[in-house]
């Protein structure tokens, strides 16, 4: 075995101490359920393994992506990799022995503090799996703290199917209903929401930027509606957008969920880092882990996991969540990335998410046969685009040029979706060329 080579002498000594002549004798497994060990997997040297796996990965072509849709790419500075890969961080266990894990605890405390600053809310946990599971947990929290009032969660009709599918699984156990409310002209239809909401509603969810990339302009009204019906108001966003947006607490958010993996995590096939913050009075109902401050016997400040009686390893079936392993290492990476950016860098990155898509839309809109964006309003990173031809055909044409785009079903219309960030902004020229190839020809 590559990673545990007892010498023959050591192995003999150990077997002697245990009193068997072969480790196999230690396996107390009935013959009837024994397996012969033949999985049919050949061993590889380290070098061969790398070649084999990298060979498989290389089967995906190298494309410039304008995809977005819940997974966003920002440049992650080199320090994030180098520091987070330090084995004391990467290979450590959850911090149940805080005396030897002060470093990671402090980093998680920093992550919590970052989320508190971004959301304005009093409590942030130190990670969820992704934005979809964070929304699921928000629905469960609302169910716990509003048990008497209602059992329906309202979500906008543009909530991505993938997120809805996760929410449906989370709400299935306690029998929480999930219902949609309308959007109109690309944003929440507040009047329609007012018609829909009633006292059976435990939670109203809205996202900014929303699924169409639009920054919601009327979230204070949504917050008021939630308040009027004793429902919680849950806002979805992400750690970059929140750096410039009004803090959700200021317009009545009780919970903020979303994606913190926009910091620290490059495109990795949808790997996420869920963000979860809520009002301080829900503290004992928070899912996931919390790091707090205490003192040690030498009266020095010390960090520790706290309020663990909410958690499954103590409270079992009465826990606030079944979460055990979560996304701690990614929270560390987000904290490092945020520190590297600083407030200027972070808000500067957010501004690029505003101007990048704005400028791209202006250029696309100037092309014959394209309308960009479809909806008015301020966009963040992405926008929907109308085309005279079939959106699928445009995607195919872009693909020929090495650009990956996608279509979305926008209330029955098939539209083009485009996402622009700091990492593909320089490729907008190529996108313009691919969208309107005849223009390029005529320019020549």
């Amino acid at each position, binding site marked *: 075995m*590559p*990673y*545990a080579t007892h010498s023959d002498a050591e*192995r003999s000594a150990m*077997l002697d101490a*245990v009193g068997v002549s072969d*480790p196999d004798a*230690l*396996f107390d497994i009935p013959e009837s359920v024994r397996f012969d*060990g033949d999985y049919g997997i050949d*061993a590889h040297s380290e070098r061969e*393994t*790398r070649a084999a796996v*990298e060979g*498989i990965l290389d089967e995906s072509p190298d494309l410039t*992506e304008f*995809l977005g849709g819940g*997974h966003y790419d920002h440049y992650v500075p080199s320090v994030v990799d180098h*520091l987070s890969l330090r084995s004391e*961080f990467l290979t450590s266990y959850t911090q149940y*022995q*805080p*005396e030897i*894990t002060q*470093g990671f605890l402090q980093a*998680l405390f920093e992550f919590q*503090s970052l989320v*508190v600053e971004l959301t304005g809310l*009093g409590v942030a946990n130190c990670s969820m*799996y*992704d934005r979809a*599971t964070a929304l699921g947990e928000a629905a469960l929290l609302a169910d716990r703290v509003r048990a008497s009032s209602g059992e329906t969660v309202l979500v906008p009709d543009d909530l991505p199917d993938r997120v809805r599918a996760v929410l449906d*699984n989370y709400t299935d*156990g306690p029998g929480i209903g999930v219902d949609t409310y309308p959007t109109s002209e690309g944003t929440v239809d507040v009047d329609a929401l007012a018609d829909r909401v009633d006292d059976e509603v435990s939670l109203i969810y809205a996202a900014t930027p929303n699924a169409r990339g639009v*920054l919601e302009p009327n979230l204070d009204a949504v917050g008021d509606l939630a308040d009027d019906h004793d429902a919680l108001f849950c806002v979805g966003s992400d750690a970059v957008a929140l*750096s410039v*947006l*009004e803090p959700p607490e200021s317009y009545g958010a009780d919970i903020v969920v979303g994606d913190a993996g926009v910091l620290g995590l490059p*495109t*990795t096939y*949808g*790997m996420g880092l869920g963000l979860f913050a809520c009002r301080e009075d829900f503290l004992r109902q928070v899912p996931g882990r919390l790091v707090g401050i*205490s*003192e040690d016997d030498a009266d020095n400040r*010390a960090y*520790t996991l706290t*309020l663990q009686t909410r958690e*499954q390893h103590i409270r079992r079936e009465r826990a606030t969540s*079944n979460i*055990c*392993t*979560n996304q*701690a*290492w990614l929270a*560390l990476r987000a904290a490092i990335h945020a*520190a*590297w950016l*600083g407030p200027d860098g972070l808000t500067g990155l957010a501004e690029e998410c505003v*101007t990048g898509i704005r400028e791209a839309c202006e250029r696309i809109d100037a092309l014959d046969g394209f309308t960009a964006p479809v909806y008015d309003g*301020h966009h963040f990173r992405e926008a929907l685009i109308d085309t005279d031809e079939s959106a699928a055909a445009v995607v195919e044409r872009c693909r020929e040029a090495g650009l990956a785009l996608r279509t979305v079903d926008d209330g029955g219309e098939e539209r083009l979706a485009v996402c622009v960030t700091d990492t593909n902004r320089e490729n907008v020229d190529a996108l313009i060329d691919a969208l309107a190839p005849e223009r390029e020809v005529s320019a020549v």
Partner: protein
Amino acid sequence: DPPHQQTRWYAGGQYEPLLSEKRSETVAVESSLPDDLTRDELTLPAPAEPEVARHYTRLSQMNFGIESGSIPLGSCTMKYNPKFTEDVAAHPGNRVHPLRADADKQGILHLLYDLQETLATIGGMDAVTLQPPAGAAGEFTGIQVAKAYHDANGDDRNEVIVPESAHGTNFASAAMAGYDVVELPSNEAGRVEVDALEAAVSDDTALLMLTNPNTLGLFERSIEEIAEIVHDAGGLLYYDGANLNSLLGKARPGDMGFDIMHFNLHKTFATPHGGGGPGQGPIGVGADLAPFLPTPQVRETDDGYETYAPEHSIGRVHEFMGNWLVLVKAYAYILRHGDEGLENVSETAVLNANYLASQIEYEVPYGPFHHEFVASANADAGDVAKSMLDYGVHPPTTKWPEIVDEALMTEPTETESKARLDDLAAAFNAVAEMDADDLTETPRTTTARRIDQASAARNPRLSWHALE
């Protein structure tokens, strides 16, 4: 003086401060967005890159990982994480967006498919989903699949049976899925009491959740009988994969009668724990349950690979495919080992646990063990753990399972050398001879001395704002 196992950095006369205390800046937010959408200012730390590097380097040195020393946490399988898997994870071919068309992500789908099939073989299962982003998420997924299966059969069942010694996540996941949890006592041999199981099962039984070997490291020798009892009652059998490390090459849950199982890739297949994630908890199921798995699954076609939704899919448990990089590392780990290497993993893990148990002076009830054992401390197990910290090792899991008094649940794993096992034994034995009073004075060589947990919970200070 004891040697310093860890540093406590300081600079400018104070201990390593909060990042925010170093130099936070409040900046006026300048944005081309209208004022009514934007905040006025943002306050965050603003260190230059050299200070970022030093801050986190110092924090790392105040942290203990598997390359710092042994972490013999029972049920956690903290084995060495082969470094090369990080290089594979850093390969540019991983930088693929999940919403690419299938044809544009063949590398990803190929790996997903191979890993699906490989895990199915290792588990003795018919189909595997890789989606759940952690072991507990895998449990929840498996229970949702079981529920969907029973529902599809018009079979209304509301109970999940869990042995008292099971992992806390089993209880929590079952509850989260809306089930009543029925706790099953252990017998004197530390195993499932078959009579008690027979009494517990009924038309209400949706699922029995077991780990095997169980948390005492004991193989449930009656597993076939147990399976028959559950199946006869119309229930399904769920295998908690936390202890799979002891079965590699030796036995397969599917062959024992399990219908559903999860794999903890970050345990059995050595992807690093990251201080509490990311993990990944794929689940395997028998053929009858395969149509209920989450979407998407991957299948082979004439041209390559494609995604598809199983016919009666429960939908999703993660927006995309969980923690992709964990999948890549686990796949690389499996390829590296091959059949012989994987069997050697379990053999060495079991030998190491038995050897260590033979070397320590604490009482170790039950046996023979597989990959872990539970010793009984002659003092408060929590105090014993803190004292062990001074010997440069991470202590075992304490006070659980409750079946053993002052439990020290110990799983050394296969990647500990004999020398390190002897060091662990020396740490156990040195602490075993300490006075109870001295135990409470420990640890002494760590970054922090004993931490007051009660005041942290009584007076929660959870962000920089609490320090102002």
